[in-house]
């Protein structure tokens, strides 16, 4: 019987093909970085937004919430939360709304999911609000489909 | 130079001829060739070219069952594209 496949050729095709796809992937990755950094949102990324992202991370928010659909699925999406609250064009109102929300937690209502109490300074809350406002301005190809997130 | 394969030369001539014909038909769409018929003809020519490559370049004329299998797959694909083109 004829040998329909030799191991050395199979190996060569595997390594060669993988290299081919890795190169294409890296090229597209580089292009995507160029695209992201040329977006208007990259210009509006100020120190407060970056500090707010850090607040988001230090408190492990992503392990209950999703942001741009990624995270845990225990609590609502937050990339569009400011729009949902109707404060996406008013940073001061966004800050007030977020402060009010955070400081009223946990509700302790029986049978309701509880958000822990996070002891944040006003500055941290303002940064977090700015981060969420900024996230809401990223061009996400119209995702999520509606304000419910 | 050792001898050229006549079968390969014939395949090359077919591919060149069919490709040229498709280009001519496409160029004629503005000059009175009906658009829908041209689309159908261009896709038929594409299927024929694909079959020539499969049969001669990829040597599937030594495995007729595979040739007809690939031929059908390409034909169905072209039919799908034509369907999307004509609706």
């Amino acid at each position, binding site marked *: 019987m004829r040998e329909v*496949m030799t191991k050395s050729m199979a190996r060569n095709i*595997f390594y060669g093909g*993988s290299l081919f796809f890795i190169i294409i992937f890296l090229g597209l990755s580089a292009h995507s970085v160029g695209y992201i950094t040329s977006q208007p949102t*990259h210009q509006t990324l100020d120190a407060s937004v970056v500090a707010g992202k850090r607040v988001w991370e230090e408190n492990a928010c992503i392990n*209950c919430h999703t942001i741009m*659909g990624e995270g845990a699925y225990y609590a609502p999406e937050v990339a569009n939360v400011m729009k949902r609250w109707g404060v996406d064009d008013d940073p001061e109102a966004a800050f007030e709304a977020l402060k009010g929300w955070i400081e009223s937690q*946990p509700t302790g209502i029986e049978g309701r999911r509880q958000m822990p109490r996070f002891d944040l300074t006003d500055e941290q809350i303002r940064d977090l609000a700015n981060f969420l406002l900024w996230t809401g301005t990223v*061009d996400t190809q119209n995702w999520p*489909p509606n304000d419910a997130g | 130079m050792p001898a050229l394969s006549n079968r390969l030369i014939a395949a090359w001539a077919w591919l060149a001829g069919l490709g040229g014909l498709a280009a001519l038909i496409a160029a004629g769409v503005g000059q009175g060739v009906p658009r829908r018929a041209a689309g159908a003809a261009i896709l038929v020519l594409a299927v024929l070219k694909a079959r020539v490559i499969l049969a001669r370049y990829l040597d599937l004329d030594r495995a007729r069952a595979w040739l007809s299998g690939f031929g059908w797959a390409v034909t169905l694909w072209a039919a799908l594209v034509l369907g999307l083109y004509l609706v």
Partner: protein
Amino acid sequence: MKYETQKIALAYFAVAMALFAIQVSAGLLAGWVYVSPNTLSELLPFNIIRMLHSNSLVVWLITGFMGAAYFLIPEESEREIHSPTLAYLQLLILVVGTLGAVVTYVFDLFHGHWLLGMEGREFIEQPVWVKVGIVVAALIFLYNVTMTVLAGKKTAITNILLLGLWGLALLFLFSFYNPGNLSLDKQFWWYIVHLWVEGVWELIMASILAYLMLKLTGVDREVVEKWLYVIVALALFSGILGTGHHYYWIGTPGYWQWIGSIFSSLEVVPFFAMMAFAFVMVWKGRRDHPNKAALLWSLGCATLAFFGAGVWGFLHTLHGVNYYTHGTQITAAHGHLAFYGAYVSLNLAIFTYAMPILLNRDPYNQVLNMGSFWLMSGGVVFMTFALTFAGTVQTHLQRVLGENFMDVQDQLAIFYWMRFGAGIAVVLGALLFIYAVAVPRKEIIEPGAAETPAE
């Protein structure tokens, strides 16, 4: 056991199984919080429980892979492991790092500290010092196994395994890169998460599965290794550009929708090939290996990986579908069956195969082990269905009709109860598994006895 240093694997498997127990317990607790949300809400909030659940999963799977490498590399390369001391040192670093991470999460120590505090990006929440420890441990590991392989025989199985492990370690380096721009952050975060589970981990999986098939079925090495190359080629050809299915909605260019949809649709192919491979090998194989439980786990792994990673992944990978299902319980359903089928089962298969050899007690009681397979697999499959229904309802109510998130969640309670019930089965199955492989059962077996007494 042909080589003395294969014994190293025992310590790794023990740590892995201990973390496995923690992982499923944390999962069960999280499942309980879903149905009874006030539980522990002040002492141990949901986000901490979930970090324990997901982090311990990742760590125990990797520890298991490393143990598997220490077990099979001596046999494949026909050499003792380069340095057993380094291997134990490496495990010590991993254990200290893991405990450090757990303590940091639970007590929220060093809040916000750049080096000691929790980092808070999903799955890579470990404090920076733990990340550094992981890298050091990985370097020790790679040095150790690479030296072993270089000195000995090189087979396709060890080549692919090493490639996978090197890729795993190198990609983890992206966890140190955290740009302020969330879109960039996510783009490279997926370099770790996606290129692990749908890239290099598949190499590790395929090579360990190939090793098991080689041992369990007695099919020619030549045949097994050719299949291995076909499978890993299909995995990387589809999986690398398949990363695009995570780049739909995070602020990356729109072309990823098409690249991601087309290539990730093909990601089902390598999983199908793995399943076909496993079954064909068993049919072709002439060897009647006494370790039936290992065979059951291997076939179960290939089958459940095909459904969990392949079919359930395909269900929501096309961007037109994903637009509505992204970030719903559909993702959770896929995640659970995919991880269980592909990587949990794989680890449990190699544990089942190796533990009797390491403990020098085969043939042994396999009924408990096989029972744990059905209990755990049944539980995870039921959980997957429950979450799939939950996700479908959620998608319709929340994404199509636009109902409020929490209102929708209240309507999903029945599915969360079902998931919790399934979780109990999984935890019991996991404990049964650990008992079955870890506790030696003294059985007097006549040499050549056709069956083990328990069968």
